[in-house]
């Protein structure tokens, strides 16, 4: 039997009536990269929180290097060599990279502050130690892109992990995992265990040796990744055999009605952009990071005002300018934004209230909203996104990420808008939720609607789109029809001139 760095036995955790973990037992060996796999809501986040000292388990045992391990706080976990890079990025936006790396004790001395240069020097040492050369220690975190913040978050965990490193969806915002994999290999060569949580099976196979599958708060099994295929893992995760993830999209006739027409649009980075979405089309958008796709989507959703251009919805000219106007414009445009945590949900309202919000006047009688009416009213769209109705009474903040995304999509659907504008709708959600989202999109266009969606995953674009637009430097540089749609073709088109680029496959 190999020596375990960390071992858990029968861990369980309840939040009120909700059982998040009921029985998780696993062992992490020295120098091993161990994947934790499971659908959203399977208990992965709770397991991470328990191991990193954020919450305490109701029962069960953990041992770390043969000692009982029961961290009461993040600092206690760190003191014992367990450090975590959190999925929800724990950086303070208006502090520098250096200060964030060294928190909570940015200054070595307690009562008198350490000099700015001293802090920067120590932080710069950490950055170079972890091979980060393109971010300086005095950069303010809010000026960094999501991917850069993610690397800082990981670097901080790397420098504290002397026994166990926990990575919770480290590549959700990290387009190029090569840097991360190099650091992971450095750690495991020193005998440090790495717990790797990711939805991306390809990555998991590349970097991990073994995987433990969680389902409904139970650890199902720990398997050698070389001895099991993707379908095998998938059926362990969901407890059934997998449906085919992608269905060939239907052909759309040339003369189908144009639902959303955009002419000569200028907004933010977007320059003179034309666009026509026909009924029955799922139009994908591929782009490198920061090519204006955010501006385009937010302008269509009415979140930002555009400088000039004409937009027609359902054949009628539309003034957007606010999400409400976008929803009410002609056939309607419903927008689902990128950052669901900050831009989308009302964490303290129930799922039913969140969903019915755009049509709140129809969810009540005489101006009073009744929760029963809300639920009835929401039932139809809830079925379309395959959200289990039992979640309707839950506060959205207590739902898993995938279910939160379903709530957001249901809210977009309830507006009755024919045009859905979705920014990376399946980012960071599990395989099961992804399929529900894809099915919802296909059903929507089959019923005469249209969908415009951006995705950071090329495979998603290739399999889901009826055609795919490539945006580069604020302009549509390619309109790739279904027949020519391959990842290589999209990559080539997204690749501009004189751009330094990293490609990860």
């Amino acid at each position, binding site marked *: 039997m190999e020596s375990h760095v960390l071992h858990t036995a029968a861990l369980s955790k309840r939040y009120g009536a909700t059982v998040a973990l009921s029985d998780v037992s696993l062992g992490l060996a020295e120098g091993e990269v161990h994947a934790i796999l499971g659908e959203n809501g399977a208990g992965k986040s709770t397991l991470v929180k328990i191991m990193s000292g954020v919450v305490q388990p109701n029962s069960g045992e953990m041992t770390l290097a043969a000692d009982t391990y029961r961290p009461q706080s993040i600092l206690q976990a760190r003191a014992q060599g367990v450090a975590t890079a959190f999925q929800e990025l724990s*950086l303070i936006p208006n502090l520098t990279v250096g*200060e964030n790396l060294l928190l*909570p004790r940015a200054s070595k001395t307690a009562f008198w502050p350490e000099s700015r240069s001293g802090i920067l020097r120590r932080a710069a040492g950490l950055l170079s130690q972890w091979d980060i050369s393109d971010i300086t220690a005095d950069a303010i975190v809010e000026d960094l892109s999501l991917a850069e913040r993610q690397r800082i978050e990981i670097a901080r965990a790397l420098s504290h992990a002397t026994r166990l490193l926990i990575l919770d969806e480290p590549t959700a915002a990290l387009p190029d995992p090569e840097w991360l994999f190099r650091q992971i290999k450095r750690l495991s060569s020193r005998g440090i265990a790495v717990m790797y949580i990711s939805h991306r099976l390809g990555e998991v196979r590349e970097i991990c040796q073994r995987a433990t599958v969680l389902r409904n708060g139970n650890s199902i099994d720990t398997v050698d990744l070389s001895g099991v295929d993707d379908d095998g893992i998938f059926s362990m995760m969901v407890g059934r055999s997998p449906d085919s993830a992608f269905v060939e999209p239907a052909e759309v006739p040339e003369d189908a009605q144009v639902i959303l027409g955009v002419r000569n649009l200028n907004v933010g980075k977007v320059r003179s952009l034309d666009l026509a979405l026909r009924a029955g089309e799922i139009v994908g958008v591929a782009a490198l990071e920061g090519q204006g796709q955010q501006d385009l989507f937010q302008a269509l959703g009415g979140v930002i005002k555009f400088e000039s251009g004409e937009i027609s919805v359902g054949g009628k000219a539309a003034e957007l300018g606010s999400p409400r106007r976008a929803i009410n414009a002609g056939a309607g445009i419903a927008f689902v934004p990128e950052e669901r945590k900050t831009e989308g949900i009302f964490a303290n309202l129930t799922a039913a209230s969140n969903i019915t919000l755009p049509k709140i006047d129809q969810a009540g009688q005489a101006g009073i909203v009744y929760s029963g009416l809300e639920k009835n009213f929401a039932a139809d769209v809830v079925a379309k996104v395959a959200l289990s109705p039992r979640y309707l009474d839950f506060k959205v903040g207590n739902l898993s990420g995938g279910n939160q995304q379903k709530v957001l999509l249901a809210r977009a659907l309830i507006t009755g808008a024919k045009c859905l504008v979705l920014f990376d709708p399946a980012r960071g959600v599990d395989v099961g939720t992804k399929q529900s989202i894809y099915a919802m999109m296909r059903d929507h266009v089959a019923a005469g609607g249209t969908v415009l969606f951006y995705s950071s995953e090329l495979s998603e674009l290739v399999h889901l789109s009826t055609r795919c637009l490539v945006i580069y430097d604020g302009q549509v540089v390619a309109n790739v029809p279904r027949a020519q749609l391959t990842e290589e073709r999209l990559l080539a088109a997204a690749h501009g001139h004189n751009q330094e680029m990293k490609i990860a496959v």
Partner: protein
Amino acid sequence: MASIEITSPHRPRTLPSLRQIAESAFPIIAIYFLMWVVYGLVEPSALSLYSIEALFNNSLPLMLAAAGATFVILQGGFDLSVAGVISLANVVVAVMPMEGPLGGVANLAMVVAIGLLVGAVNGFVVAYLRIQAIAATLATMIMCKGAALLILKAPGGFVSDFMAYELTASFFGIVPIAGVIAVAIMLFWAVFRSTNTGRSLIAVGQDENAAALSGIDVARTRFTSFLWAGAFYGAAGYMLAAQTSTGNPNGGDPFLLLSFAAVALGGTAFGGGRGGVTASLFGAATLMLMQKVLFAVGVSSFYTGVVQGAIMILAVLFSAFVLAVTRQRKSR
């Protein structure tokens, strides 16, 4: 699965960005000195040592109160107990005057201790029992005001000569002591904000969850902020007694709203995480100076409130505008 990224190296920055300047105390300091220029032009006698000293003495209690409130507001909290603590400290000093510099220090220690006690209660109830700050500090405010009325039923009492005359004078006849105290607090803040406690304060105000995941003890940070606030309110009541030479059980009431106004004018965000004590000190000083300027220009005192409010809105709009402009540039 494939995805793509452009790398964009961040170069070391040499000059502070426009946003950093706008978020610092600089705008309010500029407004303050601009107002002095206006004041000097319309009322040349205003630049005499006597009137400068009087103005500083007038402003100091509000400055201290605003400084205290800033500690709580920075971490994203709210503290109404300011009115109660100032009243209580004011009457305690007035019924127990102690002569001489040592007596002055003893008096100060007493009221700071009272402030710390109230702050500890606020902090415990808000940070550890997780009661809403408005409810908790409203309760302590009412308690303190009640206690002040128990100690002194009506305005009266007297303060020591040391406090009434020497604390409100000037060093060597030219440097107002009130001004020295204000500068000392600014220096203190310049150091404090870079300590681990100071950074924690800003981090908790910015993003409580991220701060907790970064290993910051959120509850302790909250608790500490109320302690600092209480100590400053106590000192504010003390300086109010020195300035008025008397005790007033309702003396703290005007400070409740004015201290929030001063903090807002200084540019500290009520949501927490952005701003600082120096900005609030200048916000308070500007508020008091504005009254003088308006009086000097001949604006009826009935309009003072209207003008003050309007200028506050302008100040808040200004910082929102700068933030919006710099954000937009960044997105380009």
